[in-house]
């Protein structure tokens, strides 16, 4: 069974690329564009995935409302951007304006994430694991339809930021400014986060709480406080991702958190859930595979409109990883002692 499956996978992985490269349908520039776009998309996945993985690492719980934390940030970011654009401030001070929009978005996402923890999850801390999971799905729907009820279910369009129009020549390659900014910002944030978790007092306490809450409390660590800070971090990253998402896609809508949330969750599992570098790697990897996958693997097999199948590729990848490496790319075996 697995052997047949592996052979089928191999056929797609080898035959598709062979055909498409032979046909020469895409130039190397096209492929580079795919990769850069994939990295930008993957950066967003990674930022959101970090929220899943941080919370999972500490609470062993999937916060399925995290996509909505991202959505709420993108939404309030839109209001801020529209207001700044209407007053002409965005045109005069685009960088300050963008920064302000990001601060508004991140603050909202932090607020939503912290309220989620306080209202929806903390009272269920000692409940069976299925209970907070169902609560998370309920919270996710609650947030979606609250936003839809308040602001309608239509698409809202972010104002254009003139400085980010066009592209930059980087190493002789033309890269869209928006994509370059998204990738650079995400990489910077991820490196800072990694340094934070590894080298600060709070980061150390987070790692200790993630291993053993009772012992962490016996060391004088305020476990509830660390859990709140974890949600704050995840929320901030999701809020920033909301603004970066808007730079690329320009639009916000009440259910925009669902799909990226699911993809980011996939990315977190791909990388090894609970593992911070894993979420980063998983996000970037998923973004790139989604971007080059349809052209590279599917078109050569004669599948029409292959790009429509990018989600299928993403989730096929998830299934394959779960079959052949259930711990994810960087995941360790969950240690036996997890009482």
């Amino acid at each position, binding site marked *: 069974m697995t052997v047949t499956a592996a052979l089928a996978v191999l056929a797609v992985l080898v035959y598709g690329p062979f055909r498409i490269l032979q046909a020469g349908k895409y130039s190397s520039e096209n492929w580079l564009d795919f990769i850069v776009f994939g990295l930008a998309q993957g950066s967003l996945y990674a930022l959101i995935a970090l929220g899943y993985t941080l919370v999972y690492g500490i609470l062993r719980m999937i916060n399925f409302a995290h996509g909505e934390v991202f959505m709420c940030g993108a939404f309030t970011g839109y209001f801020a951007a529209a207001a700044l654009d209407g007053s002409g401030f965005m045109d005069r001070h685009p960088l300050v304006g963008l920064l302000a929009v990001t601060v508004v978005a991140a603050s909202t996402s932090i607020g939503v994430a912290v309220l989620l923890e306080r209202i929806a999850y903390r009272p269920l801390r000692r409940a069976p694991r299925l209970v907070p999971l169902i609560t998370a799905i309920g919270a996710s729907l609650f947030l979606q339809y609250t936003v839809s009820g308040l602001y309608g279910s239509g698409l809202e369009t972010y104002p254009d930021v003139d400085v980010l129009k066009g592209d930059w020549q980087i190493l002789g390659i033309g890269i869209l400014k928006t994509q370059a900014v998204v990738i650079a910002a995400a990489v910077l944030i991820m490196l800072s986060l990694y340094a934070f978790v590894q080298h600060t*007092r709070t980061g*150390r*306490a987070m*790692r*200790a709480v993630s*291993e*053993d809450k*009772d*012992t*962490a*409390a*016996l*060391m*004088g*660590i*305020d*476990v509830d406080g660390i859990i709140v800070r974890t949600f704050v971090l995840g929320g901030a990253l999701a809020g920033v991702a909301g603004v970066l998402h808007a730079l690329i896609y320009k639009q916000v809508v009440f259910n925009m958190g669902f799909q990226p949330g699911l993809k980011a969750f996939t990315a977190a599992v791909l990388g090894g859930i609970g593992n911070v570098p894993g979420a980063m790697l998983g996000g970037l990897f998923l973004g790139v595979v989604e971007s080059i996958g349809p052209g590279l693997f599917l078109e050569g097999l004669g599948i029409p409109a292959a790009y429509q199948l990018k989600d299928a590729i993403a989730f096929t990848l998830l299934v394959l990883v779960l079959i052949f490496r259930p711990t994810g790319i960087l995941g360790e075996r969950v*240690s036996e*002692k997890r009482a």
Partner: protein
Amino acid sequence: MALLEVDAVHSYYGNIHALKGVSLTVDAGEVVTLIGANGAGKSSTLRTISGLLRPREGRVRFAGADLADRKPHQIVADGIVHVPEGRGIFARLTVDENLSIGAFTRTDVDGVAADREAVFATFPRLRERRQQAGGTLSGGEQQMLAIGRGLMARPKVLLLDEPSMGLAPILVEEIFAIIERLNRERGTTILLVEQNARAALDVAHRGYVLETGGIALSGAAGDLLHDPRVRAAYLGV
């Protein structure tokens, strides 16, 4: 006034009545041991003192102050440090990081650095392994790290839960020698839970015998060592 006072405490795990009116006192500078069979409530007593377990009845007082409303991390800041059964080493944190976590409540950087040196002086093997992940240490090294990490908080009272468990006899001797030295040289007050009753009574000033959630006997350690009931039940003579 006793430094630590457990007063008629009843604690439960769900519906299981683990402690049925346990009372004991520890004076400043003492080593007091709590001995008893598996399931007698030794660990539950320590968990109740450190706040992991909330007593349903009775009081725990430290330096005269009631601990009923204190959370575990605040009790650590007060000066009661609990080295849990099974050591509780953070397996993915390095030895150095484990020690830093032990000093989590402290802000005096110089004092922490000095105490880290003191721990390394007491346990030279930990210095050799300071960059290693805690999970890679041997059982004996982990126990040393657990005790060293407890000392990093500068405890006024150190609660040690089964420090000799799972260790080779030669290491057991070493651990008890260290406990004695901590008390003699630094004046650390220690409440020691042990199954190894003889060794525990050898280092302790006083002892309590716990049976099915209540104190069955108490007295000077030397008297308990010669008590026929203790000898029959816990010393195997």
